[in-house]
């Protein structure tokens, strides 16, 4: 039994040398094969980062932004403005194109499609109203122009709708009234008439529809524009940037609750005065409103007593230091990251009443209010807007005094400030223009159109910049993992952008704004995704330091044995050669 068992096991050292060598070679070759065929691909795949596919080519196309904006204008001639001869050539359509190249990546083109026609009988009746405002109202009941379009009614010189020195009246909706000179001065042919009217119509378009300065200002995220003068810097800084939502906070500051007990019907006032504006602005952004009362909140600046008027005054220069001490106490909604607009109403304490703001020329500011760009507004209550005023200066007044605030006046000022901060306000109109007051909604239709134009362009510009820089970033840093949800957000942003640009070209303002908002949301979500953080910066020497201790001890024996095999094979080949010869 023992002997048989012993025969089975031959010692390794007794085996013939060739067998040993061959076994050794086979071992080295097979190890090398496993390392190269299995090991290297395995290492490559396991150290690879997952990067989902991004539509890079489409993003590159979007980087070269070409925006086409088009507006439809209808020019209606009332009776007495055109001769029967000229009337034969009407109706007529003209198209005007203007191209602007802002910089190497951005180009704008404006298209105005103007249709000329004569007025219908109902429109003539509407134009016979005594005042321009009533004419505007009755014209509006006849037809409603879609978003982004304009109607200009041309009225003869003899018309009494407009006052003497006013040539153009801009209504609350999308209509304007233009008065032209008598037919003698204007000219016989239709071409001369149109040529005479063109500068005026251009001015109307500039005021009521998009203008080149507004659109280039909206592109400021994308293009480094050198600001012209102090006013244009101030204009560009004042309005909030486009955001999907805003928070509005109304605060009542009562520094002296021992003397004053304040009553303000904020809920009713917001519902009646502010909410119509916000409802009208709902295609642009969502708004959330809240209100609070702060007690013992001081202004932080000591007012000076003006003995000539026996009032306390605040200088315009000291207003900048009012905001900071108050802001620390205002608070905001912790859950949202939307920009906040603060509107503060300050009731001066009994020892500093009445308090007025003086401008640089020492004149009282009629509204007694000031606003800070991209922050909000502060108003100091005026005595005449408060009831129960007479009891202030009597000796035997019982403190605290009940004060009821006239919310209509207060909200009038806040509404004006809100319009400024949201970017609704336009520049001063040219001479000879009369702009109708914006009415109870707080916003004229054409103002809404202007806002929608600039917001669409701003959203498209911002979204394209975001997507392009994200693609560039992901390309540059190979270590960032691109998850599927990010790729999906990017794709949807690209799709929305393409749709927005095409809708803008077609002139559908509402759809363009909606798609541009979707594009902004997707691109922001993709850019600010928490998983896109590139934390690992490996300089090359650190990479070597990690891999060398792992791979070098393994690779050196394999390489050496391979080299040995190759040199032996070559030797054998050389030995065989003389035999063959």
């Amino acid at each position, binding site marked *: 039994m023992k002997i048989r068992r012993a025969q089975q096991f031959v010692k390794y050292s007794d085996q013939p040398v060739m067998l040993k060598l061959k076994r050794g070679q086979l071992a080295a070759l097979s190890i090398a094969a496993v390392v190269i065929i299995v090991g290297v691909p395995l290492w490559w795949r396991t150290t690879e980062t997952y990067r989902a596919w991004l539509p890079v080519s489409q993003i590159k196309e979007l980087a070269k932004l070409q925006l086409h904006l088009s507006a439809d204008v209808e020019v209606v001639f009332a009776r007495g403005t055109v001769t029967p001869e000229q009337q034969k050539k009407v109706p007529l359509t003209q198209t005007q194109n203007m191209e602007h190249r802002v910089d190497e990546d951005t180009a704008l083109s404006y298209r105005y499609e103007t249709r000329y026609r004569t007025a219908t009988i109902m429109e003539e009746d509407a134009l016979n109203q005594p005042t321009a405002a009533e004419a505007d109202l009755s014209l509006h009941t006849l037809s409603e122009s879609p978003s982004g379009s304009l109607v200009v009614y041309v009225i003869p010189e003899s018309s009494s709708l407009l006052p003497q020195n006013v040539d153009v009246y801009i209504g609350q909706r999308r209509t304007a009234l233009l008065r032209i000179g008598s037919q003698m001065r204007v000219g016989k042919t239709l071409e001369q008439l149109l040529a005479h009217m063109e500068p005026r119509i251009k001015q109307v378009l500039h005021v009521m529809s998009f203008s080149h300065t507004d659109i280039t200002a909206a592109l400021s995220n994308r293009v480094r524009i050198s600001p012209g003068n102090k006013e244009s810097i101030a204009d560009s800084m004042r309005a909030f*940037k486009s955001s999907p939502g805003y928070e509005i906070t109304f605060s009542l500051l009562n520094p002296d609750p021992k003397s004053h007990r304040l009553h303000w019907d904020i809920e009713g006032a917001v519902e009646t005065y502010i909410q119509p504006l916000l409802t009208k602005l709902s295609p642009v952004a969502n708004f959330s409103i809240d209100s609070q009362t702060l007690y013992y909140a001081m202004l932080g600046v000591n007012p000076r007593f003006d003995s000539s008027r026996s009032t306390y005054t605040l200088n315009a220069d000291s207003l900048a230091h009012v905001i900071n001490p108050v802001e620390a106490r205002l608070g905001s909604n912790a859950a949202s990251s939307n920009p906040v607009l603060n509107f503060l109403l300050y009731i001066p304490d009994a020892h500093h009443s009445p308090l007025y703001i003086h401008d640089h020329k020492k004149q009282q500011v009629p509204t007694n209010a000031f606003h800070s760009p991209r922050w909000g507004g502060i108003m100091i209550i005026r005595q005449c807007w408060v009831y129960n005023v007479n009891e202030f200066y009597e000796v035997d007044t019982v403190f605290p005094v009940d004060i009821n605030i006239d919310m209509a006046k207060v909200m009038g000022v806040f509404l004006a400030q809100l319009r400024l901060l949201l970017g609704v306000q336009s520049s001063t109109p040219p001479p000879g223009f009369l702009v109708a007051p914006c009415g109870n909604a707080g916003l004229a239709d054409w103002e809404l159109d202007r806002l929608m134009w600039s917001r669409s362009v701003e959203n498209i510009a911002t979204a394209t910049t975001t997507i392009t820089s994200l693609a560039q970033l992901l390309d540059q840093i190979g270590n960032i993992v691109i998850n599927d949800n990010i790729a999906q957000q990017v794709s949807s942003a690209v799709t929305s952008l393409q749709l927005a640009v095409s809708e803008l070209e077609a002139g559908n303002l509402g759809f363009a704004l909606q798609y541009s908002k979707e594009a902004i949301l997707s691109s922001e979500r993709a850019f*600010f995704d928490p998983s896109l953080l590139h934390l690992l910066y490996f300089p090359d020497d650190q990479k070597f330091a990690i891999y060398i201790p792992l791979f070098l001890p393994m690779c050196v024996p394999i390489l050496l044995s391979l080299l040995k095999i190759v040199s032996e094979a070559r030797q054998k080949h050389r030995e065989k050669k003389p035999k063959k010869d």
Partner: protein
Amino acid sequence: YINIYSGHTNNWAVLVCTSRFWFNYRHVANTLSVYRSVKRLGIPDSHIVLMLADDMACNHRNPKPATVFSHKNMELNVYGDDVEVDYRGYEVTVENFLRILTGRLPPSTPRSKRLLSDDRSNILIYLTGHGGNGFLKFQDSEEISNVELADAFEQMWQKRRYNELLFIIDTCQGASMYERFYSPNLMALASSQVGEDSLSHQPDLAIGVHLMDRYTFYLLEFLEDIHPASKTNMNDLFKVCPKSQCVSTPGHRTDLFLRDPGSVLITDFFGSVRKVELTMETINLTDPIEQLESGELQKEMHTYADQLPVSEIIHQKPKQKDWHPPDGFILGLWTLILLVFFQTYGVKHLKHIF
């Protein structure tokens, strides 16, 4: 064109102290003194992101608990009673710092922990701690390199998250951290050049540690003279702490900044001077206020969730511990003992056991 107007409407500050442990008291005092100056000059807490390990004031070794002093003889307590620390303890990490800068925070992050700046914000970033050539050490366990910082600033610029940015760093070899910046509108100051160490100022014998670093000590002295309406400009800030006082050579970098430093006010970054405009218009509102019926208003009644049901806690019985089978170590030990036993005495003894 030469633009001398700053063009900013709001100010933010990100103040980071990257060290922990008692012997790094001076770094916390540095950061808190800058925090204090920045608050005094007008930036509200909602616009300051303060990252501290916050283990000084209530440290067991602090002879005066709830205080952090910056001058010896305990002259100035910079901890105060209205410090708002946004990231404390182990939350001060490189990842969180980069997340704040780039804005890539998880959606559950509250507003106070975010940097909600826009394209008209001037941001002040102050870093202090232990650093080296090209890196800054965070909490003794990780580092941030100057390349990562430069990339983070570039991403901020791509998204227009700042108008102008002032970067101040008070560490050893601090100038290496701003070498790699390449985004526009960045101005940087450091307390020492590459190869130099930033030194601490003075120890307090009662507390037992160094209270402040030299650069920040003289920076604080300089800032104490600034008030919200002062017109001091950046050229004066560059002169703070010359080599005679600081022993190291402070450095600065302004080549990426568009405006001339002489026209940049200190309060453009350290304070918060608002621009105001007088409101000249008002809208004539004539409708009377609609009287809402009280029934239309839906008032939500809020109640506090019962977080600590005290009655349950008082009457709780101790929980029965579930039986667990013996864990691996005991099993292994017994296996070893059995194996040794059978090896020694042979397998034939198995029949005596089973």
